[in-house]
């Protein structure tokens, strides 16, 4: 005799039904979200639709660096790994030109985001932030890096605690900044479903826009002792670190490939800073190195992965 869901009843099949199976069955039949057993509750939460049917934020970030990375930037990578409990650190990425292969690495690691630290000329650091496999990606030039090891940065927080992410209102002023804000939220804000999280909230990540650049700070929340003067906040902040400044280079439509959506007009490559461009000699028609980007197999676009001034004579 079939029961409610059309299958022959288990009793009829002569199987013993354990408590687990009973509960599951009951849950499936009733479709109620208010669970009675702990097991059912857990099952509900694990579903994509999440607790109480609301959407969940599920993110995993792949952390990578290129070869030729220096000690300071390696420490920065380690600091990021410590701050993002939903991140996975992978070995160094060998390729210089065909970065879209990172999408495959991300897929293998089960990640839907990637942060790639590209170190060029042993001095310049570029930070790539991408939503793998299809999403947009951003290339930043990183400046003023201070790692957590610096003794001036005296704060400390739980490893794995979820941060409060604070954004400047300037992020809503331009479409490219809005896109960046969304990407920062998805990459830096720790989701509730991550396995390595700890229960308390004791630090704040701060993103601000000053001088057309994005400034990153990380503060520890210190609760003041009870006798608090009126007009004063009950908490104070101590900087933990790291701190860095991101200068947008380009925003791409694809992940490490694709058409350029936004290009920063004020960005000057460090190569150009140190070796200023000279106009070609009069009378000659000397063509500087033609711009070459790698062709992405998936989107078949010639992606401008490198600035023209970087290829050629200034490249190691």
């Amino acid at each position, binding site marked *: 005799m079939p029961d409610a869901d059309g299958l022959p009843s288990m009793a009829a099949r002569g199987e013993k039904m354990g408590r687990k199976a009973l509960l599951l069955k009951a849950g499936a039949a009733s479709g109620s979200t208010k669970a009675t057993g702990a097991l059912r509750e857990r099952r509900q939460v694990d579903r994509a639709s999440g607790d109480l049917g609301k*959407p969940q934020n599920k993110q995993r970030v792949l952390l990578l660096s290129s070869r030729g990375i220096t000690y300071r930037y390696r420490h920065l990578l380690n600091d990021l790994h410590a701050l993002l409990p939903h991140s996975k650190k992978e070995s160094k990425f060998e390729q210089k030109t065909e970065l879209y292969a990172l999408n495959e690495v991300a897929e293998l690691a089960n990640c839907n985001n990637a942060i790639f630290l590209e170190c060029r000329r042993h001095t310049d650091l570029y930070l790539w932030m991408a939503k793998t496999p299809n999403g947009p990606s951003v290339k930043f030039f990183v400046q003023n890096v201070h790692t957590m090891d610096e003794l001036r940065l005296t704060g*400390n927080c739980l490893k794995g605690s979820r941060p409060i992410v*604070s954004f400047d209102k300037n992020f809503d002023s331009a479409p490219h900044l809005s896109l960046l804000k969304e990407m920062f939220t998805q990459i830096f804000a720790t989701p509730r479903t991550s396995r390595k999280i700890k229960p308390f909230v004791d630090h704040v990540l701060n993103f601000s826009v000053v001088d057309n650049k994005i400034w990153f700070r990380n503060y520890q929340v210190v609760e003041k002792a009870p006798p608090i003067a009126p007009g004063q906040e009950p908490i104070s902040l101590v900087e933990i670190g790291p701190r860095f400044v991101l200068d947008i280079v380009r925003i791409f439509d694809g992940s490490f490939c694709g058409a350029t959506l936004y290009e920063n007009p004020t960005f000057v490559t460090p190569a150009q800073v140190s070796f200023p461009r000279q106009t070609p000699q009069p009378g000659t028609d000397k063509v500087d190195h033609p711009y070459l980007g790698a062709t992405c197999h998936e989107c078949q676009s010639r992606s401008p992965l490198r600035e023209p001034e970087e290829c050629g004579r200034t490249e190691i």
Partner: protein
Amino acid sequence: MGKKKGTKSRKDDADVEGDSEFADIEAFIAAQDAAPGLKGGSGKKKSKVKSGRDEVEDEAETLQQKEEARLARELEEEKRAMARVAAEEAESGLVQDEGTSQRAPRRVPINSTAALTARLASIRLPPTISFIETLALTHPTPLDLAPEAASDDLRRELAFYDQALHAAVKGLEQLRQLGVPTTRPVDYFAEMVKADAHMLKVKQRIAEETTNIKKSEEAKKQREQKRLGKKVQQQREQEKREAKARDVEKLKQLKRKRGGGVEEESSGGGGDDFGVTADADMDDESGPARKKTRGEGGTQPPRGPSLAHSKRALSKHAKYSGKTGGPKHGSGRFEKQKRGAGGFGEDDGGKNKGNMSRGPQKFKGKPGTFNVRKMKEGFDGNKGKNRGKPSGGSKRPGKDARAKFRRTPGKK
């Protein structure tokens, strides 16, 4: 045919050439003219066709006009081509090297807002997502920092601090309402982002810094005090020197006045005791007390002949008698009389037989046999008691003798 001759305008040209017979031919030729590289040929052709109908001047004019027209059309076409190229470039994202391309115009940086917005919509988290999922907050007011202020560390960091503080307060409030624990209990031990060893180093550094600051402040204070102290010391020394100089001056004055001051009889002179006291004061070598009285200027210098009561005073006088340069004290008639004829215990005529009866003894022995003990005992062999010592009153035993009877040892 009714053609107008000598017309210059293009329109009229068209009319001129609008003859049905020659219209298509002209049109063909015009098209030929537009294509580059066929200038010479088409010109010739034109002239050939026209020569039959037009005069020579008209021919020239129309030629010129045609040239202009052709050039204008060429220019336009080129512009259109360049624009097309630029658009293509912009679309594909290829960059032209600026240094080489004199032909390509400067590229505008890409900012396709429509595409950006579309992309944002495609990746955005569902709007129904709750705060607890992301813990992301946006500050209500934008951070208005001028680009120059970016290099002003303090202001910039304060602005960041304010923004983060606002977000932290608001975020924690919301979490508290949701019932999520935010404060870490004191006994909750877990791995921290920075290791304990590192935090120890941080603490040591802070302690070092505070001690360094204190040390430097102490050193500064010491330096200041030293500087001040030196000044004070110098001032004091100078004062001392001045006071000493003043004292010496006064002394000199006194001596001068005293020595040549027999004529200067004033209130304090005569046979008064004041004179004696003044002298006694002057002769006394004790320091500050003497100085004070002198400084105050209370005592007048003695006037008139000195009348030394005690032998002691006399003997003390005697010390200065030679130094001041004045007449020897005690050399006057009176003094001599008072002293007596000389010798010990001799009668000086019945006047002063007490202390003064013992005048200075005469040494009657051989020269070279002078003995102090003998002096005290008496040269004339008189082994009397206390010769040379003032008589009268009970003799006070010496210190050692007294010490034996002292109840409290060491009492002063």
